């Protein structure tokens, strides 16, 4: 007859489990700019958990430092929606300046830097004070926003001016303008703060900028057999923390380029959904998620194997993606 007594280690495990609670599963959050929703998926099973109605034309999305809040550029509302990720309710929106498309959260977790495309401005939003505390004039049609890991430097790209603007975060002054190829869309800092990678959608290239010299040290080109050059339109860029690999979303080429981030050699092209724009890793960087705006789905890439493992339907016109730990 089995004993009815519970061993001490086993009891301790049960108690700890009760106190801590079960670990929360990672979730993937996708903004759908035509559907005006956020799709929430389980990052492991890839099941759609819920679809949350938000403001009009949600595009750029950013997680708060504690991962409890999702900030959403609601472009047609001229506001930043604030979504509580515990109960999925919208709180009072933040101001943003007109037509916010993309933004970045400062490492202090307290300030958002917003591209206002129509006004050629970067707006600085103080999250606690709930107001715009500064505006920085930049080039025409500002778009990509990247902040150095130490929070000292802001890089904004302006689509029409074809520049990456380096902004001193202490003075809020532009200290350098780096010319890149036509229509720069995204600025991505390496984890060590040494480089900024800037994609050029019309130019079809990625410029690698030395962050201290503020000059382009390498330009990456792409060529895909059977795909016309004009269809290769780089937008989203993401690098692994160890800076070994970079992944670049190539828009209507429907491919993600895999690049050796040390040699800048393009190793392969992964076929994903239609018009791939934005990218996000899961926490351990074993998976990469892509938003595919025309096929209305996301693709899931196995990072180690460098292959696409699945696509999952989301809402109408998926745009931004983040992973919540």
């Amino acid at each position, binding site marked *: 007859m089995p004993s009815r007594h519970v061993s001490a280690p086993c009891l301790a495990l049960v108690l700890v489990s009760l106190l801590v609670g079960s670990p929360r599963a990672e979730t993937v959050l996708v903004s759908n*700019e*035509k559907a005006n929703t956020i799709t929430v998926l389980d990052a492991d099973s890839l099941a759609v958990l819920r679809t949350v109605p938000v403001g*009009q034309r949600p595009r750029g999305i950013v997680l708060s430092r504690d991962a409890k809040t999702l900030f959403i550029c609601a472009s047609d509302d001229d506001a930043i929606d604030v979504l509580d990720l515990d109960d999925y309710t919208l709180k009072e929106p933040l101001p943003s300046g007109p037509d916010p498309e993309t933004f970045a959260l400062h490492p202090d977790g307290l300030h958002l830097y917003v591209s206002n495309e129509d006004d050629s401005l970067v707006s600085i939003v103080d999250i606690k004070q709930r107001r715009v505390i500064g505006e920085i004039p930049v080039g025409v049609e500002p778009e990509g926003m990247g902040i150095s890991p130490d929070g000292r430097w802001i890089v904004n790209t302006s689509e029409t001016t074809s520049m990456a603007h380096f902004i001193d975060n202490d003075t809020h002054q532009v200290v350098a303008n780096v010319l890149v190829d036509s229509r720069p869309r995204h600025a991505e800092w390496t984890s060590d703060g040494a480089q900024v990678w800037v994609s050029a959608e019309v130019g079809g290239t990625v410029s690698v900028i030395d962050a201290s010299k503020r000059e382009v040290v390498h330009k990456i080109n792409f060529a895909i057999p059977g795909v016309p050059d004009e269809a290769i339109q780089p937008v989203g860029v993401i690098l692994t923390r160890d800076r070994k690999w970079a992944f670049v979303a190539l828009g209507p080429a429907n491919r993600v380029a895999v690049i050796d981030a040390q040699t800048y050699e393009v190793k392969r092209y992964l076929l994903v959904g239609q*018009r791939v724009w934005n990218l996000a890793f899961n926490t351990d960087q074993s998976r990469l998620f892509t938003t595919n705006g*025309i096929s209305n789905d996301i693709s899931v890439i196995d990072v180690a194997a460098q292959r696409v493992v699945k696509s999952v339907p989301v809402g109408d*016109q998926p745009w931004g993606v983040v992973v919540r730990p």
Partner: protein
Amino acid sequence: MAHRGFIALALLLSVAGSVFGAERLRFWNLTGVTLNELYLAPAGTTQWSANQCKNDRDGTVDHDERLTITGISPGQYDVKLADKAGRVCIVQNVEVVSGRPYAFSLSDKDLTNCTK
């Protein structure tokens, strides 16, 4: 008397709104291609408007870009468009609406009547 005053005020606001605050109508290009020509005609006619793409800064409308439409009132229209590759498509009975951020959008699934 107060009722007449209210009606007069409403009429005044209506006229002022149409004269001074004409709503901007915008097309949202959700097709996968860049457009360089876009015309509207009242549904069932061939009274095409001027090329609306000329309202854009660079004369083209990229995927996901918005285009301001001029000389058009809300209603039912046929839309003719051409992309940079030379394909010409006509989409019939498109509802152009006011009161929202975009008046109408077109996506690839709407482009079924095309020639090149």
